[in-house]
C-alpha cells in the first residue's frame, strides 16, 4: 500500500511539474463552458435585418418598432426597392428582410387581408427558419392586439409550455455535453498518454522489473487524473449554476456518483488505448479519433440522434458518452432520480467492466 501511495505521489509530481498541461487541464472546461455559453450558441440573437416599408402607416411603423425592439433582431437598414434588398443580401449585411406592401393598414382594416413578405437568407436553413418564426410571432402578436375587441367565432389557440427549460436556453443541453467531453478527454487521453510516456521513456521497463504489481501501477497512474476530473466536474457545475443559470434540479450526490462511474469508464478506455499505442502521438490520435469525435457526434448534444439514419443510431449506442449525457440530463435538468437512469447506469457499468476486463487481459499478455 505504501509503495502504491509513493507511486501516486510520483504521478502527481509529473502533473505538477508540467504546469502548462495542468493549466490546460484545469482551464479547458472553464473555457469550453464560457465559449459554449456565450459565443457558440445556437440561439439566434441580434440578427441584422432590413425593412422595406412601402406603406409607412401606423400599422407598419408599430410592427417595425416591435421587431426592431426585440432581442432577436437588429434593424440595420431601411431599404427602398427590391433591388436594394437583393444588393444588401449579397453584401452579407442582413439575414432577413421584411417587406410591407402599399396601403398595408388600409388593407388590414378594410380588406380584412394584408400581406407581409419575409425574405430570409436560407444558405443557413436553421437560422432562416428560426428568424421567420420569430418575426411571424411578433406579427401575430400585433394581429391579436388589433383583434382584441372583436370576438372571433371559432378560434383554436395553442398553449405552449416548455418543460425543464422554459427559456429554451442552449446551456441546458451543452453543459451535460461538455461534462461528457471533458471527462473523456482528461481521463482517457491523459491517462493513455501518461502510460505510453513511461513506455517511451523506458521507465516502464524498470518499474515492471520492480516488485510492484503491474495492475497497481496502472491504477496508481489513473488516480491523479481521476482527482483532476472530479475537480473539473466541480468547476463545470459551479459555472453552470452561477454563471449560466443552469440549475442542478436533481440530486447532486447521484450526479457525482454517476460522473465518477463515467470517469472510470473513460479511464479504462485510456488504459486500453495505452496497451496498443506505442508513442504518445499515437495515443493522443487514437483518443481523439475514438473518443472526442464520437462524443461530439453521437452523444446527442450537438446533433439529435433521432434524426440520424438507423445505422448511425445503432452505432451511437456503443458510445459511452451518449449514456452519460442522458444520465446527466435526466438528473441535472429534469431532476429525475435513480429510477429514471438505472438502465443507462447499468449499460455504463457493463461497458466499464468489459473495457477493464479486456485491458487487464491484454496487459497480462504483454508481460508474459
Amino acid at each position, binding site marked *: 500500500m*505504501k*509503495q502504491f501511495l*509513493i507511486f501516486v505521489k510520483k504521478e502527481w509530481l509529473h502533473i505538477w511539474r508540467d504546469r502548462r498541461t495542468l493549466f490546460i487541464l484545469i482551464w479547458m472546461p472553464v473555457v469550453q463552458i464560457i465559449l459554449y455559453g456565450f459565443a457558440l450558441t445556437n440561439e439566434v440573437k441580434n440578427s441584422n435585418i432590413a425593412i422595406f416599408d412601402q406603406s409607412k402607416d401606423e400599422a407598419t411603423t408599430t410592427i417595425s418598432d416591435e421587431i426592431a425592439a426585440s432581442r432577436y433582431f437588429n434593424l440595420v437598414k431601411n431599404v427602398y426597392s427590391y433591388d436594394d434588398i437583393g444588393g444588401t443580401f449579397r453584401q452579407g449585411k442582413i439575414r432577413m428582410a421584411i417587406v410591407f406592401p402599399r396601403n398595408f393598414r388600409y388593407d388590414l382594416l378594410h380588406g380584412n387581408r394584408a400581406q407581409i413578405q419575409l425574405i430570409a437568407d436560407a444558405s443557413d436553413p436553421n437560422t432562416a427558419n428560426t428568424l421567420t418564426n420569430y418575426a411571424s410571432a411578433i406579427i401575430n402578436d400585433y394581429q391579436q392586439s388589433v383583434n382584441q375587441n372583436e370576438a372571433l367565432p371559432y378560434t383554436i389557440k395553442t398553449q405552449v409550455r416548455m418543460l425543464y427549460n422554459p427559456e429554451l436556453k442552449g446551456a441546458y443541453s451543452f453543459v451535460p455535453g461538455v461534462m461528457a467531453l471533458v471527462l473523456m478527454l482528461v481521463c482517457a487521453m491523459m491517462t493513455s498518454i501518461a502510460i505510453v510516456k513511461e513506455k517511451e521513456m*523506458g521507465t516502464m*521497463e524498470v*518499474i515492471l*522489473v520492480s516488485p510492484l504489481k503491474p495492475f497497481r501501477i496502472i491504477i496508481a497512474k489513473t488516480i491523479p487524473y481521476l482527482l483532476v476530473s472530479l475537480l473539473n466536474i466541480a468547476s463545470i457545475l459551479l459555472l453552470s449554476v452561477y454563471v449560466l443559470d443552469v440549475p442542478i434540479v436533481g440530486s447532486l450526490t447521484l450526479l457525482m456518483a454517476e460522473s465518477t462511474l463515467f470517469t472510470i469508464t473513460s479511464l479504462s478506455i485510456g488504459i486500453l488505448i495505452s496497451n496498443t499505442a506505442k508513442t504518445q502521438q499515437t495515443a493522443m490520435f487514437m483518443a481523439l479519433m475514438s473518443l472526442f469525435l464520437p462524443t461530439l457526434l453521437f452523444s446527442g448534444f450537438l446533433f439529435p440522434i433521432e434524426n440520424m439514419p438507423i445505422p448511425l443510431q445503432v452505432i451511437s449506442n456503443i458510445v459511452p458518452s451518449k449514456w452519460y449525457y442522458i444520465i446527466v440530463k435526466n438528473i441535472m435538468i429534469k431532476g429525475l432520480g435513480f429510477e429514471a437512469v438505472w438502465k443507462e447506469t447499468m449499460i455504463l457499468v457493463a461497458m466499464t467492466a468489459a473495457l477493464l476486463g479486456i485491458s487487464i487481459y491484454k496487459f497480462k499478455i504483454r508481460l508474459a
Partner: protein
Amino acid sequence: MQNEKVITAKELTKRFGDFTAVDKITFDVEKGEIFGFLGANGAGKTTAMRMLCGLLLPTSGLATVAGFDVYKKNEQIKKNIGYMSQKFSLYEDLTIAENIRFYAGIYGLSDERIKEKTGSLIKQLHLEGQEKTLVKALPLGWKQKLAFSIAIVHEPAIVFLDEPTGGVDPVTRREFWGLIYEASAGGITIFVTTHYMDEAEYCNRVSVMVDGRIDALDTPANLMKDFSAKSMDEVFLQLARKAVRTGD
C-alpha cells in the same frame, strides 16, 4: 571467490514465432562476480536479460536467479534484483531526491532508510546541494551514474545493467566502472551487457553471444589466449564475423 551460484541458465531458449532470439544458452554466474554479456546488436543479449529479470517468459530451458525459478518465482526474483535499462530510466521531470525516493519507495524501503540512502548516495556521487535539481538538468554521464546508484539503492543480490554506458564519454565511463567495482566489492553480483571491449576487460568473466548462442565464455585473459588475440576487440571480431544475422 565463493562458489555460490546466483544465476544459473540451462538451455534457456526464447522464440518469437519462427525467430529464435535466444538459442539454448547455458551459463552460471557466481556471487559477487562481474559478468560481462557481450554480443553484436540483435544477438539476443537484451532478450536473455529480460528472461532473467522476469520481464519475458522463456520458451524452454531452465533458469534460476538468486535461487528462484524464473517460471514460478517471478515475484521473488523481482525483489532481489536491480535493473538499469538501455534507455535512460530516471524521471527527467523529477528532482534527484524525488527519483531516489520513488525507486527506493517502490522496493518498500522504510522512510528512515530512504533518507539515509539518499544522503549516502548524494555524497558518493558528489551531488551535495543538488538534491532539488531536476534530473534533466544533469549531464548524461551524471545521469547514468545516478541511474546505476538508484538501481542498487535497495541492495539487491544481483543488478542487471543493459548497456549502461552507451553514449557516455571515456572519463565518465571509467568513473562508472568505479561505481560498479564498489558495488561488486559490497557483494552485489553484476550482470552487464556492453558494446565496449575495453569494458569487457574490466569484467571477471565474459560471454560472447552470436546469433542467440553463447559462443565463448571465460575470463578475458583466457579468451585472449584461446583466440590468440591481443585484445578483447580481436576476440569479439573473430566471433562476430561468424554471425549470420544482421544487427537491428
